[in-house]
């Protein structure tokens, strides 16, 4: 019997062939923690009396959620992480460098690797063909300390997508559609394997949207076989040597297959307060909803391609006067490229506010907290009650194109109607 992609990767790290349902101990190649989960991970390691970590050069602490720090408590947490990292040799990606998942993809994540992260969107790394999954601080603390973790080998769901995406329909719309079909727990404990000609045609930025949001359907990971897109992405990052070919066997066994015709998709929006509450943008419950704030950024849609698209749709125009537009590049690399291309200038001229790279308003810590009763259209991955810092506010999730159309009109608008 052939192996799914996740069975192959975990097997390579467990030293033997493995099949779905087995519980194994596997070697871990990369670990990450961030400023919200890292301090607890460090305290757990200290409880064990550990002063050394297994492979410090493969561990990164990201100061990205409170970047820069809005409060003394968080400044103290940042210092705590920097000091532990300095003592142990762990790497630090400091304030302004960017969101963990983006920076990991730019610098560290490689096909076939196992990456565990104390952040649920660690699954973003699946786009590069890595088994990347989110865990809690304690699991990651043990991964950092011992260089291994225990895993239940997940069953796999094959998500086969064929056909060309229509105009102004993107990976975000595809993924919201998939999450709407599966439900927020439809792929619980499972691995999503994305394949088909639509997926092969997507660039790395768009592939990362799919893997990033796999967890929103409950999945453990969202994997895409490595190919020429992966190879050229790594080469662009100066990491051509990190490429390896990894994918499923042709006769792999799947728990089920989800077939999607990309040509039939429309721009999609996720309504408050759950990600699986998905409707097409032109649905009566969606289009025309007054929007107080548009946010473009995050590990889902804060990449150069997203900012370029936003700038292209806003060029020479102004955002609606009653709607705030907040843009946060996902990393310093994205920010610099967007500056050099004139994208940031276009956005500022269109009335946007641009913050330094990091998680920004997505996590409710600072920089873009909504007022009571306000509505935000966000390119992020979660719209839970209270997610952006106010449980009395409402969050709609959509693509950067829908964000652009909505920023222009001051209400949720169909991006296909913007020239």
């Amino acid at each position: 019997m052939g192996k799914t992609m996740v069975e192959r990767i975990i097997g390579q790290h467990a030293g033997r062939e493995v099949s779905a349902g087995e519980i194994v101990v596997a070697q871990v190649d990369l670990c990450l923690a961030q400023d919200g989960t890292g301090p607890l991970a460090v305290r757990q390691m200290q409880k064990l009396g550990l002063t050394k970590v297994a492979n410090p050069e493969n561990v990164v602490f990201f100061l990205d959620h409170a970047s820069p720090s809005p409060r003394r408590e968080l400044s103290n947490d940042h210092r705590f992480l920097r000091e532990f990292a300095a003592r142990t040799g762990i790497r630090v990606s400091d304030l302004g460098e960017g969101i963990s998942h983006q920076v990991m993809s730019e610098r560290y994540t490689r096909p076939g690797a196992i990456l565990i992260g104390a952040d649920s969107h660690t699954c973003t790394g699946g786009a590069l063909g890595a088994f990347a999954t989110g865990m809690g601080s304690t699991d990651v603390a043990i991964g950092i300390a011992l260089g291994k973790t225990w895993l239940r080998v997940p069953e796999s769901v094959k998500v086969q997508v064929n056909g060309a995406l229509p105009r102004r329909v993107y990976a975000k719309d595809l993924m919201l559609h998939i999450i709407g079909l599966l439900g927020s727990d439809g792929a619980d404990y499972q691995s999503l394997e994305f394949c088909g000609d639509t997926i092969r045609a997507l660039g790395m930025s768009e592939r990362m949207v799919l893997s990033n949001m796999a967890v929103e359907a409950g999945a453990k990971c969202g994997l895409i076989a490595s190919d020429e897109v992966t190879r050229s992405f790594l080469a662009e990052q100066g990491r051509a040597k990190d490429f390896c070919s990894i994918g499923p066997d042709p006769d792999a066994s799947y728990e089920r297959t989800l077939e999607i015709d990309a040509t039939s998709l429309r721009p999609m929006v996720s309504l408050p307060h759950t990600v699986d509450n998905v409707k097409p943008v032109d649905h009566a419950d969606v289009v025309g909803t007054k929007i107080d704030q548009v946010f473009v950024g995050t590990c889902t849609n804060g990449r150069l391609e997203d900012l370029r698209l936003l700038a292209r749709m806003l060029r020479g125009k102004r955002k609606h006067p009653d709607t705030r537009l907040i843009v946060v590049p996902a990393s310093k690399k994205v920010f610099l490229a967007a500056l050099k291309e004139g994208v940031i200038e276009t956005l500022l001229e269109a009335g946007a506010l641009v913050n330094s790279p990091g998680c920004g308003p997505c996590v409710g810590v600072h920089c873009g907290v909504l007022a009571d009763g306000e509505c935000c259209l966000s390119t992020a991955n979660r719209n839970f009650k209270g997610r952006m810092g106010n449980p009395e506010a409402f969050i709609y999730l959509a693509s950067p194109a829908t964000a652009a159309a909505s920023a222009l009109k001051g209400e949720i608008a169909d991006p296909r109607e913007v020239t």
Partner: protein
Amino acid sequence: MIIKGKAWKFGDQISTDHIAPGRLFHLRSNLPELAKHVLEDARPEFAGQVKAGDFVVGGRNFGLGSSREHAPIIIKMAGVGAVLAQSFARIFFRNAINVGLPVVIVDTDSIEEGDELEVNLGAGKVINRTKGKTLTFPPLPAVMTRILDDGGLIAHVHKCGDIKLD
């Protein structure tokens, strides 16, 4: 282990943002303070009134969202004996075991607010004293039972010097 207490009923899809909201991000290194706000965005009165041994009873996909382990930690710190739900989000479930908070997958439909419950983890039984009804649940995977019995993952690794699967 037998735990006795009262049911606090919650709905489907209680996220870690309901349990430990992002606006209190700065309290994550001050867990006793964070625990005063546990589940605040789902039921504001819960944190002030919950008694030791009481049960959080959820519906489908309890604990979805962020990987923040602070969520199960502050539920445990509030004195909650166990969380019962029809299903759990993967990361929350694993985190709960790692921090020593019992989590039980059981059909919670028949349990109502205030029901007096008795949970026997070893026997896989929830006895609803108020309704006179017994519910059964399957045991945890062996590795999770072992971690829970050892008092969490840190205590397990401390005891075994490694991750032991059997």
